[in-house]
């Protein structure tokens, strides 16, 4: 969601008389007062601007303002507080706004007699420092002003527009069906109907640019350009965003417009770009046409000192608040203990008391807030339903079931997604059974390694399913017998479900079994989970650090050995482990019997490697060592 604003420390320094600290220190100050810094190295400070501050912070001036507030370093000048020059009006630029509400302001300026060429070094270097490519002095001037104060600008080659009696006509209109445009960089876009366009009003509305996104190649400024038509406008954020989205064309201009900067900014953008073009490309300003039907009223927001402290939980004094507002460059009046703040025009995020409380909080530093504990509430927190569900889980775990969690997206179902992540899983699951079946199959494959010589793998899941009739919280349970015997598995499941119904739920829960009887699901939502949980305290499960299993398959070897009567299992196991090597992952006793004064132990050894699949050449030598060692023991004999 954040938009990257790449700033140059050198560029920012232009806003201060005092020397700024190193980029890393600036980054820290910004991170804790306003916005996270993605990267700060050498001259570059890349700031992540969130939507609420994008209207003013996608600019060096906006970032400088925040550095000024954070470090309490005064700005040497603030371009947005300076008085704008008055430019001559001209009837040689006619502007018509066709679309109500989608263009709040359009300023067109005509400059004649420029000399397009390379930019001066300072301008080139400034742009290149923030990752922009220098194109020519005119285009660079528009980009520079945009990156400096945040107003997107555009320069058209006036000679490529149609002149009538020496005048040009700009129309802002919606595109009709099947219009297309080729942009400055040569790509052609088919425009969705209704796309906001800049058009040549003297040439039947020929498109000159996609409003707020990118200009057309047909009016591009080149080395041969002599006369310029400059645009500083305020296009509707929603319209621009929709267009950028539809065309998948995201530009520096569109990312600024979509955050709805003030239309007042366009006036500053125009003043700055005229000054800069005349400086770097020469020429003469003919005049300006400014169509601005409804200039917004200045906005105020008020907050009392008490309210600020009530929101933040702080005990700031009026002087703290004054200090914060002063550093942020806010003008305000005080009426008793209420601050009435005149929001700077570029700060469209300042609307209500809470916004001002945030300004104070972040400016004084959230570190200054002490931790306060919430007061105790009467009564017991409502966790019965949770505890009821946990009671079911605990009941099953106690009976040897292990819990799994599986994806909600499925290849079959009743509710389909318009935009699935995987085309073969377009539905929300209507049952837990398919995932359970898959999990049981995979679990059976790894059971010797994970569970040892257990006769069954038993799994369950508690999860939500989605049907046309609504969603439901289901429990699925499944049992698979290791080494076959499906009937035994089905029998084991049936017994456990019966126990669940009788001993825990104390009602028949209407479980639905699969055809083979090895899996079932039941609707937990139909049970009174709150009642079940009323008196229940879930078991605490303590876990240690995660040790993943190898991704490579494990290999099994069985070994059986006669020992003297009275030999302990551990003695045999230790003898095996000492010789089996590093790849031995687990050892389980699976058989023991006594005959003729001897005891036979049979162990299953599971080997695995984290690097590769093991081969016989790995296992055979290990098993030979084990066999030799066991046979050397007095009275022992490998069978």
């Amino acid at each position, binding site marked *: 969601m954040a938009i990257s604003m790449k700033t140059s420390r050198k560029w920012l320094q232009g806003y201060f008389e005092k020397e700024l600290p190193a980029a890393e220190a600036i980054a820290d100050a910004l991170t804790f007062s306003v916005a996270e810094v993605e990267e700060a190295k050498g001259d570059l400070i890349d700031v992540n601007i969130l939507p609420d501050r994008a209207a003013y912070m996608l600019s060096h001036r906006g970032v400088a303002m925040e550095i000024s507030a954070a470090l309490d370093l005064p700005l040497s000048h603030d371009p947005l507080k300076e008085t704008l020059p008055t430019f001559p009006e001209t009837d040689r630029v006619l502007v018509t706004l066709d679309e109500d509400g989608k263009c709040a302001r359009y300023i067109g300026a005509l400059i004649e007699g420029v000399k397009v060429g390379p930019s001066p070094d300072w301008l080139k270097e400034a742009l290149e420092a923030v990752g922009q490519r220098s194109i020519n002095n005119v285009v660079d001037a528009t980009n520079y002003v945009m990156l400096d104060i945040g107003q997107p600008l555009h320069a058209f080659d006036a000679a490529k527009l149609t002149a009538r009696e020496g005048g040009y006509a700009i129309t802002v209109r919606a595109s009709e069906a099947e219009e297309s445009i080729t942009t400055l960089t040569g790509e052609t876009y088919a425009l969705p109907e209704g796309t906001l366009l800049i058009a040549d009003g003297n040439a039947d509305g020929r498109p000159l640019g996609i409003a707020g996104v990118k200009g057309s190649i047909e009016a591009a400024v080149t080395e041969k350009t002599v006369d310029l038509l400059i645009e500083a406008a305020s296009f509707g954020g929603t319209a621009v965003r929709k267009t950028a989205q539809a065309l998948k064309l995201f530009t520096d201009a569109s990312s600024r417009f979509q955050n709805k900067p003030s239309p007042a900014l366009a006036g500053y953008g125009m003043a700055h770009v005229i000054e800069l073009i005349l400086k770097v490309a020469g020429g003469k300003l003919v005049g300006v046409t400014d169509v601005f039907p409804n200039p917004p009223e200045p906005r105020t927001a008020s907050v009392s000192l008490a309210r600020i402290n009530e929101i933040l939980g702080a005990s700031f004094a009026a002087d703290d608040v004054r200090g914060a507002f002063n550093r942020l460059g806010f003008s305000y009046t005080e009426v008793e203990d209420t601050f009435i703040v005149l929001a700077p025009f570029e700060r469209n995020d300042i609307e209500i008391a809470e916004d001002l*409380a945030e300004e104070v909080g972040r400016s004084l530093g959230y570190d200054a807030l*002490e931790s306060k504990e919430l007061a*105790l509430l009467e009564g017991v927190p409502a966790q019965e*339903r949770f505890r009821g569900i946990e009671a079911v889980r605990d009941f099953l*775990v106690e009976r040897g079931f292990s819990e799994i969690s599986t994806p909600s997206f499925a290849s079959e179902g009743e509710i389909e997604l318009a935009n699935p992540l995987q085309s073969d899983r377009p539905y929300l699951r209507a049952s837990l059974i398919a995932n359970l079946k898959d*999990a049981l199959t995979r679990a059976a494959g*790894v059971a010797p390694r994970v569970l040892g010589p257990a006769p069954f793998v038993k799994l369950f899941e508690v999860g939500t399913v989605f049907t046309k009739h609504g969603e439901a919280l289901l429990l699925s349970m499944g049992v698979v017998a290791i080494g076959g015997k499906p009937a035994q598995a089905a029998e084991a499941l049936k017994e456990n479900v019966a126990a669940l119904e009788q001993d825990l739920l104390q009602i028949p829960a209407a479980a639905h079994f699969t055809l083979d009887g090895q899996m079932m699901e039941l609707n937990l939502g139909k049970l009174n989970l709150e009642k079940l949980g009323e008196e229940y305290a879930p078991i605490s*499960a303590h876990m240690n650090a995660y040790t993943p299993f190898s991704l490579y398959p494990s290999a099994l070897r069985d070994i059986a050995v006669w020992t003297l009567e009275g030999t302990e299992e551990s003695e045999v196991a230790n003898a095996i482990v000492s010789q089996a090597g590093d790849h031995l992952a687990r050892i389980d006793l699976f058989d023991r019997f006594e005959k003729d004064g001897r005891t036979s132990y049979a162990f299953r050894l599971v080997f695995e490697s984290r690097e590769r699949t093991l081969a016989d050449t790995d296992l055979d030598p290990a098993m030979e060592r084990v066999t030799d060692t066991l046979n050397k023991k007095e009275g022992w004999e490998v069978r």
Partner: protein
Amino acid sequence: MPPGRLHPLTADIREIARIFATMGFGIAYGPELEDEWHNFDALRVPADHPARDMQDTFWTNEEPRRAPRTHTTSVSVRCLEDMAKEGKTEGRMIIPSKVFRNEATDSTHEAQFYQLDGFAVGPVGSVTLAHLKGTFDRFYREYLGEGVQVRFRPSFFPFVEPGVEMDVWYEAPGKEGRWLEVGGAGMLHPDVIQNAGLDPKEVAGFAFGGGIERLLMIKYGIPDVRAFHNGDIRFVYGFDQSLT
């Protein structure tokens, strides 16, 4: 037969629930497939907000469309609506449940994961940003250990004002300590309180949210978030688990 295993998320959500219960928080439930009002509009995420784009949110092809919820703050809205109906002005809930985001998956991103969202509201002045800090100081100290510290950074979420990002200082066993981003939070925006039918002049409070898998990944050293929900028992058995 020896006992089976709880899924690690279940194990830790119990711990989370226990800690929050000591601070008076209940546990709320609500639909995973949510309407646009509760997931977006009531939370001041406007219709043209990028978060509502197809590339961030899954949508059903129903009419009207619904979304597998992108956070469980949708349930917080439902709780606040219930409070308004019941005439209550005080409440605290956590919603540790599944959410969905339409994004490419990798070792730190999943399209479905669990989020610990929640809220505390009360009479104006009784639940403040300082209380948010106190609540999470305590939560993380109990969940991750005594050496933990919590800090706020300014941030933005449409449904809170002020909005903050929460970081915790955590020293994983055998590793150097570092600050980790664990979630977003802030004071519920008065419009949200109003949207739920409560009076923002009477009721105020904080809301918070963050991924739960991420907490477990930090705490137990789990390298890949995709292990949580793939149904593989090797993940569940990748921890020693003792039940008490």
